[in-house]
């Protein structure tokens, strides 16, 4: 599975960073950096929390076919 960021929606509020810091980090300009996109089963819980926690609904999980 891969996590994707919709940069048109993201405003860098950073809740994802506090819930899944291995995946997300906001930089000095307030822009979100995706540190890695591939999500293992073990990491799924924290990434889902980040997705649900995003006030701009900018994160999505893309299931590999």
């Amino acid at each position, binding site marked *: 599975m891969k996590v994707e960021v919709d940069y048109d929606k993201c405003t*860098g*509020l*950073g*809740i994802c*960073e*506090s819930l899944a*810091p291995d995946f997300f*980090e*906001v*930089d*000095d*300009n*307030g822009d979100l950096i995706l540190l890695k996109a591939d999500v293992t089963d073990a990491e799924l819980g924290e990434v889902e929390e980040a997705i*649900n*926690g995003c*006030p701009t*609904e900018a994160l999505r999980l893309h299931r590999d076919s």
Partner: protein
Amino acid sequence: VTVSRVVVVGASLAGLRAVEAARKAGHEGPITLIGAEPHLPYDRPPLSKAFLAEDADEPPHFRTEGDLRALDVELRLGTPATGLDTTRQVVLIGSEEVPYDALVIATGADARHLPGTEELDGVFALRTLDDSLAVRSALDAGARTVVIGAGFIGSEVASSAAKRGVDVTIIEALPTPLVRATGTQMGAAIASLHSRNGTSLRCGVGVASVEGSGRVERVVLTDGTIIPADLVVVGVGVAPNVAWLEGSGITVDNGIVCDETLWTGVPGVYAAGDVASWHNPTLDLRQRMENWTAAAEQGAAAARNALDPANARPYGTVPYFWSDWYDVRIQFVGEPGADEVLLVDGDPSDPDSTRWIALYRKGERLIGVLTVQGQAEIMKYRGLIMKGASWEDAIAHADKRRALAADKAAANKMASAG
């Protein structure tokens, strides 16, 4: 006992998340979502920020009606719940009874109004989509605007008005705004963003009256000053929406009193969002939040627990809110009730300093952090508070980040010089 009928009262963020979480948890029985406003659930933060400052066409609805139909939710919008009978397990909408096995109360909070202004046109709170649309159209018409209350909502409205080129005056009764939310030192610092951006802010003076015949014409202050006004926006806080629960047996004390699982103590009844006062196990404090993150998370947690009370899980969080003023982002994590507030980055008294970071200490522990334009920093501190970091650890972290930033700045300088 399996829950068959889920009722959610309150069709804003917490209510919507309750409905979605109930389905996600595998609940297949009927769900009814009762809302006072006629609108589909919508997002409130933009109403005083981007939606007010810019000309977005579409209201910030979370979901389409089709999305909600796909969840098989019975929508009762524009029909406020008027009562609750916890013995017979029914929610009342007037004389109509809506039975439940599990109930999530997410009726939120309503804006406080100024007494005596109800009959005047041109006086608004800013809480609902309708409020935002009305204020936006008045701003669009170039209304001379007075904002009463320099808290977050009032300040956001003032900055959105300024972005539209409208002249604004903010009136604040307290000598320093935002003291309850951020403490005295940082309240004053943040309030200085108004003067930095050319907005007039008058503190320590009350409003004697808001006057006009039919429409608002002027605001009279307690020191006798008269400010002509075509639009008055009142941002003096909110009150939890609990009047409909009178006589229900639900305990109310600054919101609905819940335990750490968001349970009200009445079988089957949970609460979430601005209306819920719960024991936050992460900070070991009783709190009632008025922010997006808590509403979203509590809505989902309350629904999951209501469906399976025997396995109810505590909901704990390090509170988080943000506010956008002018082009500045203010962020806060944790709790402002501190023994000490220490500025670790920036200098609010220096006009060239635009990024400020303040740490809040309670005992020996880091309890809160405020940043202004510190987007890269704030969530690292949220992580520290979650872990229960000591004050010493927090200071060490701040030192490390400052050193890192200095290195980065030096490297950039070298690169641009070379």
